């Protein structure tokens, strides 16, 4: 897949992939136990929800916005689906309800950003706090327990679940990867993030596009919450704490620029893989787990610094704009 949109096509994807390959090589030599079936499948299942949210976040970041409320949204959607499942409704209805709830929260974020012009970091900071504390107030901190057996593993067997979840996440990832590249809507997302005024003049509706990407992120967060909740027999009310940071970091490492206009699903997938693999790798390599966050932070810094160096078009633009004419 050759990108037609950037002269520096896929440079970031290649460098993240190389980092993953290097890590794999080191682990293969130093800690072959890392590649045990149990470890890898644990790692995969734990990070499928992160991947889904990261894909939604990729869209939001490409439009030049950000959403830090996904962690709270994740907790609320999970609890809501659990409570619904306990009333006896089929699992697919509980799941759909979580997605719808996420869509509603996302649309609210998006509408506030797009139509009232409030910066997305402020809007989602508010919804992050409101949802988190709202949940604490509503549940009084009590976890959802005694889930029906139909809820666990989505009503599948423990053996079937990983396969189904992986295939579902894979299909969704592929759909968004293709959509961003081949749908007019995908093009509109890039155009909005890169130059909203030009997009508007080309007949696009940047406000509707912004609202939609937030709504999509909400729906994916709801889905991720259900996929995650189904792995356990109780649902915590403090789930998803720090999820937003993990997700945003993965997207940024994957090459999306927080100023908007760039990013790809493939990059995000690689970013999620790299950040997910590093943590447990440290344990296997005998490094104290306390270093995990520090090393993740270093990876993010390297990625962002690479952005600044790599982007001649930005510097050119900045230089020209100060040179206004008479």
């Amino acid at each position, binding site marked *: 897949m050759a990108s037609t949109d950037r002269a520096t096509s896929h440079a970031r994807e290649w460098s993240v992939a190389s980092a993953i390959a290097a890590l794999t090589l080191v682990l293969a030599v130093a800690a072959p136990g890392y590649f045990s079936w149990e470890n890898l499948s644990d790692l995969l299942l734990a990070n499928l929800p992160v991947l889904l949210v990261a894909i939604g976040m990729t869209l939001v970041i490409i439009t030049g916005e950000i959403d830090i409320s996904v962690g709270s949204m994740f907790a609320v959607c999970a609890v809501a689906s659990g409570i619904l499942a306990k009333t006896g409704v089929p699992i697919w209805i509980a799941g759909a309800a979580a997605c719808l709830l996420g869509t509603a929260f996302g649309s609210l974020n998006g509408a506030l950003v797009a139509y009232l012009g409030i910066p997305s970091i402020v809007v989602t900071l508010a919804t992050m706090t409101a949802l988190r504390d709202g949940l604490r107030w509503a549940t009084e901190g009590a976890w959802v327990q005694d889930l029906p057996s139909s809820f666990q593993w989505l009503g599948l067997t423990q053996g079937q679940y990983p396969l189904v979840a992986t295939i579902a996440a894979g299909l969704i990832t592929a759909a968004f990867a293709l959509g961003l590249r081949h749908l007019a809507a995908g093009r509109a997302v890039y155009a909005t993030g890169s130059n909203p005024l030009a997009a508007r003049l080309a*007949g696009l509706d940047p406000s509707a596009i912004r609202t939609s990407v937030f709504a999509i992120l909400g729906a994916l967060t709801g889905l991720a919450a259900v996929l995650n909740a189904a792995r356990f027999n109780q649902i915590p009310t403090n789930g998803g704490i720090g999820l937003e940071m993990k997700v945003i970091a993965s997207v940024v490492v994957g090459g999306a620029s927080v100023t908007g206009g760039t990013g790809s699903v493939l990059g995000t997938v690689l970013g999620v893989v790299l950040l997910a693999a590093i943590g447990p790798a440290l344990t296997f390599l005998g490094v104290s787990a306390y270093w995990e966050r520090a090393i993740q932070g270093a990876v993010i810094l390297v990625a962002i610094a690479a952005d600044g160096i790599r982007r001649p078009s930005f510097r050119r633009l900045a230089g020209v704009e100060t040179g206004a004419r008479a």
Partner: protein
Amino acid sequence: MFERDRIASLSDGTDHPHPEGSRSPKNRYHPAAVPVLLSASSVSKSFDGVRALREVSFDLNAGEVHALVGENGAGKSTLIKIMTGAEHADAGALTVSGQVVPRMTPAMARSLGIVAIYQQPSLFAHLSVAENIALSLETGGVWQRVDWTGRRRRALALLEEAGAAIDPDRLAGTLSMPEQQMVEIAKAIGAHAKIVIMDEPTASLMDAEIERLFSVIGLLRAQGGGIVYISHRLEEVFAVSDRITVLRDGEAVATQPTADLDRSALMQTMVGRPLKDVFPKRSIALGECALELRQLSNRALGLHDVSLSVRGGEVLGVAGLVGSGRTELAETIFGLEPADAGEILLRGVPLHIESPLQAIQHGIGYVPEDRRRHGVVLEMAVASNASLASLGAVSSYGLIDRNAERRSAESYVERLRIRTPSVSTEVGALSGGNQQKVALARWLSIGPQVLILDEPTQGVDVGAKAEIHALIQDLAERGLAIIMISSELPEILGMSDRVVVMHAGTVSGVLSRSEATQHRILSLALSAASPDAAPGPSSSVSREGHGVD
């Protein structure tokens, strides 16, 4: 003689209270007797290969008001920026008070007593008037204690000297435009500025405030300061200046004592280039009326009662000064800011255009003025930029067919002779002229009936300019109705079948190709008042129309 009448009416109709009383009788120009405060010699400057200034020499004497006039884009702002250190000249020398300044910086300009007052005041909106004044005057480290009462006292004194009754405790953001302008003037007085550069200082001022401004100018010159005065309003230039320098296409074409010039001669000098034969106009049979505007108004954009029509195959030039409502007209037609009164008719059918999408669906295309900001998406490829308004045409079953998109883009690259390594190249990597052609390609791909071009050749080099002009004619030949907004009079005269001149948010005249001359267009652009109309109410309206662009 028509032009003469109109020009006479300029002085009689919209005259300001003559500031003669507020200052000593105009100094005749005595080159040897007075010290030179500032001189720029043979200054040249280019932006991206486009010449903005070519060997311009300019000097300012103590106690003198030296006016700088010229059309939009003649190089006035660039020259000011070089004097204040905001830009560096590519060649030439700057001398301030007899001292050569090899590399001027804004801080150095300030310490040399050079102060610029712009059309748009640049105050800190969240700070009080007193703080704004203090910030520009106080020196010393960041740890010094703030003397609030002292700041207030000084602000009061300076404002009084400027003749402005403004409470120094008010936040700058709450001041009106004229009040902000007066604060800027107070800052200049407080800085004991020796050289004050005023760029369209009266654009937002009313008559009484202009009078006050003129008395401040009198004060500054009495203290031995020099003033560089830039204005589109020739009556002011004549009232206040001692000498006038005319810039045209980046060259200083004349410097003369004001007393030796009259309005007509000055305007002749401002526009006076002979029409070069770079715009060979083809004769194209005109078709039906494509677009008609009836009394179109848009209060939000300051546009009122615009009526005009353009036929298929016709190039309608739209002339006017910056701020006269030309771009606002285009934005209204295109639905960016929908009209609040009047009618738009496309081929005789009334339309409601509420958004750009609707305009596009009706076959109206718009290539905006500032192409880097609005016209193209710099980080996207040529192909994706070209298809952005017509993705349906290169899609099948809702999916973009990248091969079809590429083929379509390649055909435009060939037709419009866009010089690009490939259609996958980012548009940001292309030259200005080629970016403009990509913007054109986008609109051609929607199969438009009406194309609005706003400054289509601004910042484009000569070769690409001729190509764009040829393209515009190709499009007209294919039956498109073209509305071409331009600040370049030769472009307007060379390309247009008819010329609409705008002033203060409305049409001040329509000239046929045979009637249109640079002189007539400029007269209409400088004043909406026709020779027999009462000038009274229109003069205040014209004030408010400025400074929009």
